[in-house]
């Protein structure tokens, strides 16, 4: 468990004071890879809002996470244009390999998540592997690439 102390959090947030809760939380996540314990109090103070408001923002946005992500994250597009080219099969094949996009989704340093549209709709099914966008994907090649990226 990565522990980030308050001083470090303050340092990240200070230059952004007054520019909104979301920007502060995004900056923290950019810096540490996640939003660590203690962030809420620091952001609340910096933005002069209640912790409840910060909590509201933190839990609203899908991108914000309170734990470090796996070393390699695979994000599979599950939106319509990719469905039209078999993304449902990709999801099913990943599930067969133990990656349930709605449940237990981290195995062996690889996390598989769903995403709604990567803007690569003409070349679906699409996914990202460790941030790199990929076209015409299937579960086997995705996991192979993810495995290499996670080492």
């Amino acid at each position, binding site marked *: 468990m990565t522990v980030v102390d308050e001083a470090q959090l303050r340092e990240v947030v200070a230059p952004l004071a007054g520019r909104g809760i979301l*920007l502060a939380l*995004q900056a923290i996540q950019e810096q540490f890879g996640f939003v660590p314990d203690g962030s809420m109090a620091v952001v609340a103070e910096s*933005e002069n809002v209640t912790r409840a408001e910060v909590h509201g923002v933190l839990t609203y*946005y899908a991108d914000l996470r309170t734990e470090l992500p796996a070393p390699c994250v695979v994000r599979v597009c599950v939106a*319509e244009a990719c469905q*039209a080219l078999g993304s449902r099969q990709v999801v099913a094949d990943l599930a067969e390999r133990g990656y349930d996009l709605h449940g237990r989704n981290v195995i062996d340093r690889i996390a598989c998540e769903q995403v709604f*549209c990567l803007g690569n709709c003409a070349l679906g099914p699409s996914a990202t592997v460790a941030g790199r*966008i990929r076209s015409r994907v299937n579960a086997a090649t995705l996991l192979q690439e993810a495995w290499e990226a996670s080492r």
Partner: protein
Amino acid sequence: MTKVFVSCDSSARSVGADEVAAALELHAMRDGHDIEIVRTGSRGMMWLEPYIEVETTRGRVGYGPVAVADVGHMLNLGMLLGRPLANSIGLVADYPWLAQQQRVTFARLGEVDPTSLADYERHGGLVALRTALALAPDDVVSEVTASGLRGRGGAGFPAGVKWRTVLDAQADQKYVCCNADEGDSGTFADRMLMEGDPFSLIEGMAIAGVAVGATRGYLYIRSEYPDAIARMQQAAATAYQAGLLGDSVLGSGRAFHLDIRVGAGSYVCGEETAMLESLEGKRGIVRAKPPVPALQGLFGKPTIVNNVLTLATVPAILTMGAAAYAALGDSASAGTQVFQLSGNIRHGGAVEVPFGVTLGEMVDGFGGGTLSNRAIKAVQIGGPLGAYLDGSHWSVPLTYEGLAAAGGMIGHGGIVVFDDTADMAAQARFAMEFCAEESCGKCTPCRIGSTRGVEVIDRIVAGVDRQRNLALLDDLCEAMTDGSLCAMGGLTPLPVRSALRIAPADFGIEPPESGDSEADDAESDSDLPEEALDDHLV
């Protein structure tokens, strides 16, 4: 030295454009070819990516798809002279798929180096901003109004009317907010433009700013577009350096500052008021309207909220003249639209044509039918909240009104093709699922209706008391349509109902014979007590 153009669009990169560029460089060096590689945006011919163009005396010649392994051969076989090879498309300007388009908003895509402001200016950039700075604000707004430009984000509201409202509003601060939260599946035109011609968007925003007296602009880009974010940040920095942004836009003494903000994975933040909330740093919760953002928008101040394509088209309009732009398309849907063909389609990509091309011409003509070679079962137009249409709609003109008359909407111009293996009941269920996942939660029809919708569709498909559940779904759709605050809940019934209309069999419903009301003999037994049914609508 021969110029070779390789796309740096993220779709091109997803199929290996970076590797192709690297291979070109390596082979050219090794074999002594004198080349300069220029990374451009994409022409939008995604099925040809990785796609490259070579500058020749006759014009640019295109090749694609290019495999890394073929690069050495292609160079040795005379690619740099534009010789025809197995994967060449010949002169780019003559290639029918492009020649049949009329590119206004996308005119520079694939042509220019998106990192170069000088290249942008060489291709007509900044002419419009200089014009706007010389005109009275009122005249700039009148020009936009006269062009007939309507919002390209989906709602199609006349841009000039919106700008006029902001211009006439009295306030100490006004804003221009560009909505680049292009979350609709099947749409990628905003992304392509930001990656391939970022200065046109900056110029468009600056024009909007000087036209209405807004000194600050925000560009809200979804986080799923990392390349677009990086390109826009780079372009904004360049624009500040060049004095295109800042306290005195092009030395005019008028200020326009641009701030780029990144979304955080929320679809509903593409709704304008939710986006404003998000820009203020809050949860992306939809606001009730009125007041409209043009009067009370960002931080309660008068705000222009326009889509990327809307703003990026403004420089072209001021350059070519409002009348010339309005002459394209049809009277109510003026100008051009960048349609995006995706899903199960042979020639997927971006097609910019005047409004009014028929759906059939788009899907069969430009699109070339399905990738799988199977029959088309449905197309979904306008994103996840758009209707599913079938072959009976092929003659529908692609205009705001044409699609509305067909029971759909043009939205942001995305057209997603499904072949006959698609299960329309699953698509209808997904529409409700997606709404449940992405609802901001503020209004009940959307927040709860979507979850109930998934359940009701499941019962219909399972054959549980089908007739009554169909009636319930209809009621639910009506409640969502009429009772939701924004398009999220309000339009989710569109794909649901249209899927049911074009493919009732996928829901287990026998097509009605000879006008008889449906005989559901197989499912006469009701598994649910009557009271339970009432609960479904909450």
